[in-house]
């Protein structure tokens, strides 16, 4: 996937398509979504982060992995 919907939002927000694609967790494909949930749980349980912080951190990490895997 190139996460076209997210890139479309980026474009509509007047930003350059060269900037990193902001990912929306609700629109992630199931596989990535599972990875995200799992990472949130680890960060919350093992890392001692609050749920909110764990979600923010997990999204950053997953987005980075998606970008490197999917080359977006």
């Amino acid at each position, binding site marked *: 996937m190139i996460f*076209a*919907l997210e*890139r*479309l939002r980026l474009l509509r927000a007047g930003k350059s398509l060269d900037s990193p694609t902001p990912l929306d967790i609700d629109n992630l494909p199931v596989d990535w979504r599972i990875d995200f949930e799992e990472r949130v749980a*680890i*960060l919350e349980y093992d890392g001692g*982060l609050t749920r909110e*912080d764990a979600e923010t951190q997990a999204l*950053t990490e997953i987005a980075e992995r998606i970008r490197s895997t999917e080359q977006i």
Partner: protein
Amino acid sequence: MKNIEKPIGRALTALQALGKKVKQTGPKQWQAQCPAHEDHKPSLSVSEGTDGRLLLDCKAGCTFESVREALGLNKGEAYMRTEQKGNFVASYSYFDESGRLLYKIHRTPDKQFYPQTPDGKFGYNGSRRVLYRLPELLESTEQVFIVEGEKDVDRLRGLGLTATTNPGGSNGWRKEYAEPLRGRNVVVLPDNDEAGQKWCKAVESSLRGVAASVKLVELTDLPESGDVSDWLNNGGTKEKLIQLAEQQSEVDVLETITESEWELPAQLGHFDLPIFPLEAFPGQLCVFYEFCEAVAESYQVPVDLPAMLALSVGGASLAKRIVVHIRGDHWEPVNLFAVVALPPASRKSGVFRAVTEPLVLFERQEVERLAPIIELNRNQRILLEDSLKHARKQAVASKNAEDRKGYAEQTDKIIKELNELEVITSPQYIGDDATPESISSLLYDNAGRFALLSAEGDIFDLMAGRYSNGNPNLGVYLKGHASDDIRVNRANRDFKPIYIHKPALSIGVAVQPDVLRGLTLKRGFRGRGLLGRFLYSLPQSCLGHREINPRPVDPKIATAYQNKILDALRLEPNVNTDGKPCPHIVTIGSDTLKELDRFAKWVEKQLGPGGDFASMGDWAGKLVGAVCRIAGIFHGLIYAASGNPAKAQIDAETMLGAIAIGEYLIPHAKAAFFEMGADPEIDSARRILDWVSSKQKEEFTRRDVFNSLRGRIQKVVELDDPLEILTNHGYIRDVSQEHKGPGRKPSQKYKTNPLWLAQNTQNAQNYRADLNSAHSAQFAQEVAI
């Protein structure tokens, strides 16, 4: 100063002192060059928890201790991931009979388990599931202890006992795990909880008639969810365990299964599918967003139905008027084949009427506009034909050669005029039911474009050769989609072949999900690429959640949508250098092409071996083309009113919107190919379920199933996998008695899940009630009209 007292403060100070680059990436999050290795780019992520502890993660793979020490942190002040996937506390390797590593199961502190195959990918990735420590199990001849979890196996193994378990925990036992235990004396040690009891029943049931003996040892004095490791920790010993097993009598497995233990089965082939992304419509087509949303609301259908249909209608309206030039020799027409699967009584017909209304209106206007012209044309032809007859008679009746020659020349002249006279017929741009042969005629009569738009699934039967003794005639569909010239011999035109230059056939159908089932098995459908040409949508039905008095479609929105489609329909074709009509050639801007290339590159990667599309290359191989068609439709709809869509290039917004729809279509296509029986075992499992459900079978034998599927299944052995799939999903249970003594072994016997059977009966009744109410509503509407 206060911050420096905290682990994060000390860690940041240490990093700065070591000359490492540090960047704050979010609240309580930092990215830094790792102090434990020569790091040229920041590999270390640092997060601060609410209790001040730090989560450290070096992506280069440094050990936790080395990073913690380099940062001068005390033990307990920091945690670190030990694996890419998570913080695993243990990993268990699973080997096959020959000792080859199949997969590892990693365990997190909170007892989550993650399989990983040797290629580093997480998941089983199609690898065969086997019992834990299988080679050792096969080598030993001792009594086997089956426990819940690898930790317990290793504990018992440490005591010199033979033990094993299954991957996937208490829900993961499979019938196939019984085979390596054939002829063995087995002791089952469940955990002290409900899940353990269920797991135990599954193990015992599969071992019936396979293992030499099965004993169940329920360890006493265990905490809730306690296991054999807890029992050993509390003073249990190897000798005591063996003694307990010896004292236990063999389990009568049949007694352990009771009706009350059934649970609703796991859904066969459940897909979590996305909703059609209406925001993918370009800003200048926001009316499509509003219209599809309004139609979905008014008819209480998923937005996917009007949206997919609107795309088909848009494509049909612009067919033969524009083509998209991608680069070099790569061109795409804009006609689409789209299919939406929804259950009966989903108000598909109403939606079809609403979305196709502009096409119907245009056709009616054209019929009226052309009526006098057609009449003139007909009159002209009759006159010429009469003149021809007269000239021929005169020629025959002539007494001298000169007169005869004169009439013959006159005859030739009339024939030439007749041949040059264009036959103008009443236009028919859309139809809902047409055989392949009539589609050819309609394409010819309508200058190469025609749309088949139907709320019924008959089209697939017609394609499969309903009226041609089951011989599929797919040529017109395949060529009509690809815009390849069609040559047809027609009986009603003096047997002269007709040529349709670059035809553009559009299809938009809504079918019941049942119609899709087994389509891959129809001759030529998959092999000749027909199914690969369709765009599929399998939205979730709204049945059971519909509003009784929804808001009707705002007439202003309907009119705005109608006008957009009418603009497209009224778009005059371009004219080539010979003065003949040809499509407007729409090109793609270079920045926009980058987005398409990015998508194409990703698709190509997935088409390779092991890729996501490896099993549906026929469909995915056309995905980029389909995206270009959608982009062309968007562009054409935006610029049709100007009369020259080629005056602008397809822009990035339009292309990204089209790609977003392409990305939406991917999981739907996967689900559709699953439904269509791309996997024959799943297809057979479904057929068994259909048969069980229709006959309301509470019990049945393997032989019964074979007889019911005779023709589709050639050998009884082909039922093994489908029946196992159904058993593993909880639809049925094997209740065969152990066969002792002489004589032929009786056919395996199965019991149907009573909860599923009852629910299915209820659903069937609801469907019928819904159908009846829909028919009543339709009748009431007709009476009112």
